């Protein structure tokens, strides 16, 4: 190693280090580049497709669109959904299968969206709720159809 090369090494090294320090120094003084999201104070903007949990929308007459066909239960890879059906007597006297309880295990759900795709009547959808932490996992077992709700007219 010649003396010239020796000082060249030092000079190049110092320059490369200075370049890095200039970059961090820039960020030190430019606070508008800060990207921290102050989460609980400023609620996050979630995309409308964000998958947080499965919900079953009800209309104002407390009616849902689920026929209890169990397509979602079959599509689910984790056994998250359990559908209990009952027989209802229609006004014209026929017995008809209807939804009794739509049990949804949020603690098993991986938000893969396969149940939503499988549903033939668009009865369930993904909501954007994401703050799911609770102290007891049994609180995560949810019944999605509201008590006393019934099937919307015209949904087969």
């Amino acid at each position, binding site marked *: 190693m010649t003396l010239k090369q020796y000082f060249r090494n030092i000079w*190049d*090294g110092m320059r490369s280090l200075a*370049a890095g320090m200039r970059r961090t120094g820039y960020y030190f003084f430019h606070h508008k580049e800060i*990207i921290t999201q102050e989460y609980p104070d400023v609620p996050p903007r979630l995309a409308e*497709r964000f*998958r947080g949990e499965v919900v079953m929308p009800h209309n104002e007459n407390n009616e849902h669109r689920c026929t209890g066909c169990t397509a979602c239960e079959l599509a689910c*890879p984790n056994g998250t959904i359990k559908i209990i059906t009952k027989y209802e007597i229609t006004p014209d006297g026929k017995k008809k299968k209807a939804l009794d309880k739509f049990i949804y295990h949020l603690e098993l759900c*991986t*938000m893969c969206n*396969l149940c939503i795709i499988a549903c033939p009547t668009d009865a369930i959808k993904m909501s954007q709720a994401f703050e799911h932490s609770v102290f007891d996992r049994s609180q995560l077992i949810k019944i999605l159809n509201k008590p006393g709700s019934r099937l919307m007219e015209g949904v087969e």
Partner: protein
Amino acid sequence: MFKEVLAEDQDCLTLNVGPQHPSTHGVLHLVITLKGETILRVDPHLGYIHRSIEKMCESLSYRQFIYVTSRMDYLSAHINNHGCALCVEKALQIEVPQRAQVIRVLMDELTRIASHVLWWGAMAMDVGAITPFFHAFREREMINEIMEETCGARLTMNYMVPGGVMYDLHPNFQRRVKQFISFFKSKLNEYDELLTDNIIFKQRTQHIGVLRREDAISFGATGPVGRGSGWACDVRKRAPYECYHQLQFEQVVEQAGDCYARYLVRMGEMRQSLSIIEQLIDNIPSGDYQAKTKAVLKLPKGEYYSRVETARGEFGVYIVSDGGTTPYRIKFRSPGFSNLSALDHMSRGHKIGDLVAIMGSLDLVIPDIDR
């Protein structure tokens, strides 16, 4: 006092790196034998997060098993899902619409950038610089938001389905991707300032963990590890899938085989991925985003294998079907597993600090190795 230190050999020291260790990026357990600070042997002990996904998949249908593969290499979840979807499509001979193909490639390349960006930050952290990690997350966050908008999730997207993609692109997709491209191009130069040209970083990575070409082939070390050793092993070039054969991009190959070569390969790949995205983003064909498929998929009896290039290397899906609705046997060839097997060979004779740099340059994702 130091009974176990002076075990078997009087001169050697056995050190457990992991399962919980800052630089194993997960729960990898390495038993290393040291002489002073020089490494004599590295013995990986795996399985701390082995979920036996291969066995799980044997009880899942061909629609369901795809989502599980996001949990393997969670940093290139899209590409894993892509490989599985390709395998099912190959078996059922489904023609994937042009639009779906382009969407898939776009997503793959975005995932590749996100994965490489995170690797860049993690690599910097492994060699002791903490600031780049946060800078890397800033860019990764942009990609994650694009993913969230279109796919509905940030990490385990489950966007690929047999026959196409789950839903169409979000209307904002093109605009945000273009924003990202222009933003990321300027940041890549900052990356060079912070690490690539940094003398300390060069000292830490050059001539460290040299893997020669024939060793890389023998170890099956694919992806940036293989290409860093001068082996052109990109599946996108070797056996193009989807629309890769129509795209202009270069396979980044470095000859040195050391940590710095692997670093340069990944930096080059980020630029190549950007160019692929730029070629496609304005030319997304219209049409269906999903081919018509049956509700219940049944693969004909036989064996199917599909290969894709993830951010870590060649990912293979091997499905053995007995004609039923679930796979009879499924095998995932994960790139990390083969790359890890070269770790012992690469790190012998180096120092502990080098082991960390080598692990960083291998870009290990432990769930990918353990499956």
